[in-house]
């Protein structure tokens, strides 16, 4: 196992290449999920504001 991780002395190169690529492909969808949450939150707020304005109009 440790021989495998050692990569014949090229461990730093092989694992850093893998690490950087997998960090990028994990980070990208994570950021997209966070972006989606923010957008949905804004849409909900917009909807609430509209409903409030609507109900104020009807009571007036």
């Amino acid at each position, binding site marked *: 196992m440790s021989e495998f991780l050692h*990569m*014949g002395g090229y461990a730093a*190169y092989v694992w850093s*290449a*893998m690490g950087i*690529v997998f960090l990028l492909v994990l980070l990208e*969808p994570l950021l997209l999920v966070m972006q*989606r949450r923010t957008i949905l939150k804004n849409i909900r707020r917009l909807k609430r504001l509209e409903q409030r304005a609507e109900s104020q109009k009807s009571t007036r």
Partner: protein
Amino acid sequence: MKINWFKYAAPMNFYSLSGKLIPFFWIAAIIFTLLGLYIGFFNTPDELGNGMKEYYRIIYVHVATVWMAMWLYGMMVFWSLIGLIFNTRLSYMVASATAITGAIMTFAGLVTGAIWGKTSWGTWWDWDPRMTTYLILFFVYIGYISLQSSIDDTRRSDKASAFLAVVGLAIVPIIYYSINCPDPDQCASLHQQSSFKGVQSDILTAMLLTTLGFWMYSFAVILMRTRNIILHREQKASWVSKLKEVNQ
């Protein structure tokens, strides 16, 4: 069965369809990538020799990201052209969703290429034709993204960046021929040619599987980003306010 493709040009229909497809692309991405890496890590042939046999693993992620970087650029141009010809809003949204994933793949290709270069040629970087033209591709992606975000009016920014994408297409054949030029004597390239001839079948299988995995990954994240763009741009539309996820 007849599929009405134009139905899915409407952001509302595309949004619900893509939401159903994303999990399948994720599953395919994980399976293909893990399978490819498994073959790459455990079946790399001994003929490569000690040393190279070990660092050759970098190639599997390098080839996959570089191919995706170029393929996604082609896709971005395709959707930009569809947008310019038919004036469909959704195609512009897909094109701009593709650009960021393309830029990330290009960056990953640059970094893994530098690491490969250090192990096999002894240098992180060289201004050889392949690396230089590939770096330009990265700048074209950055230019597209910057242009798009610098114009506030979405219709104008969509059109302007679509034109930039189409003009930038000129770099793709230059990248390809920078290592596969018709007369090898005229090409002083440090970079290996991208030929399938003489490549071990295990290496080829691993390369194709990881590339397929990254392709499926690209589908998944591009669809996710397109859905975000649709939600953001259509936030005042009545179909958005009726969505289940909005009314939670």
